[in-house]
């Protein structure tokens, strides 16, 4: 957040990281579509797994979590943990219904 580090790492220009991330995201998207056709859409875990990888790329590079303080990182982590609680306990019901 300070001015210094927004100028980049000193030797690499400010656009380099984001541009690489953009390439990685397009690649992951292509892989995801290809896998959906190859494996059929029956297994949601593969698609969601790749989407989560894309989300992590955006969070770490675009949203700058890499260099954000521990508090912001914990906040992002807390979101995932709470989503985990919601899914886990909701499916504690749905997966055990007779």
């Amino acid at each position: 957040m300070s001015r210094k580090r927004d100028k980049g790492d000193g030797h690499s220009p400010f656009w380099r990281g984001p541009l690489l991330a953009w390439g990685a995201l397009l690649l992951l998207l292509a892989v995801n579509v290809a896998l959906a056709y190859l494996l059929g859409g029956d297994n949601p875990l593969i698609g969601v797994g790749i989407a989560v990888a894309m989300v992590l790329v955006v969070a770490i590079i675009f949203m700058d979590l890499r260099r954000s303080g521990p508090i912001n990182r914990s906040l992002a982590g807390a979101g995932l943990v709470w989503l985990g609680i919601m899914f886990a306990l909701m499916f504690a019901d749905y997966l055990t219904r007779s």
Partner: protein
Amino acid sequence: MTASTASSPPVALHEPWEDLSRQRQAATMGMWIFLLSEMLLFGGLFAAYTVCRSLNPMGFRAGSHEADLVYGTINTVLLITSSLTMTLAVRAAPARLHKVALGFLAATVALGLAFLAVKGMEYHEDLTKSLFPGPGFKLPQQGAEQFFSFYWVMTGLHMLHMTAGVIAVSRLIVVGRRYPEWLETSPAVEATGLYWSLVDVIWMILYVLIYLPGRGG
């Protein structure tokens, strides 16, 4: 975050802050907490979707098969790219590259509007194919109508977020063009960037939930 009056130049530093870098830190943290609540907002929708899909797997597959992958993929690429331009604008602004930052912001707005336009075309096509739940709905399978219920609610809510994002970025351009120093120092730039990326992230998940289940066999 806005200028109080049009005549006086906007100040980035506001009461009760005495230090701009602390204020920026606070704005970023505030935005992250807001994003946390947004995660739970869409997370609740995703959970509801997952439950309904687990109850009607075939219906959801049939529904997804009708969703237009081309529009969806184009929109994903548009959004990923807009997230790139937004990030570059956020990085360029404090580096005193005003022209560059404004250019990237304009590109972001353009890409965002393109996304909304494509989404509008897709909605139009969906409606002509009678894919809105209700009497005369196209698909007979149990659960397909439900899939499209989630489709409309989730993409609709996402579209609202996109619209808010386009407005917020446009505001940065309008104020930033007149007052380059404001663009350089205001906490609003980074906060808006975070919001934009989150809207992008939400779409990435939506894309997988909506467009991919019905592919392949």
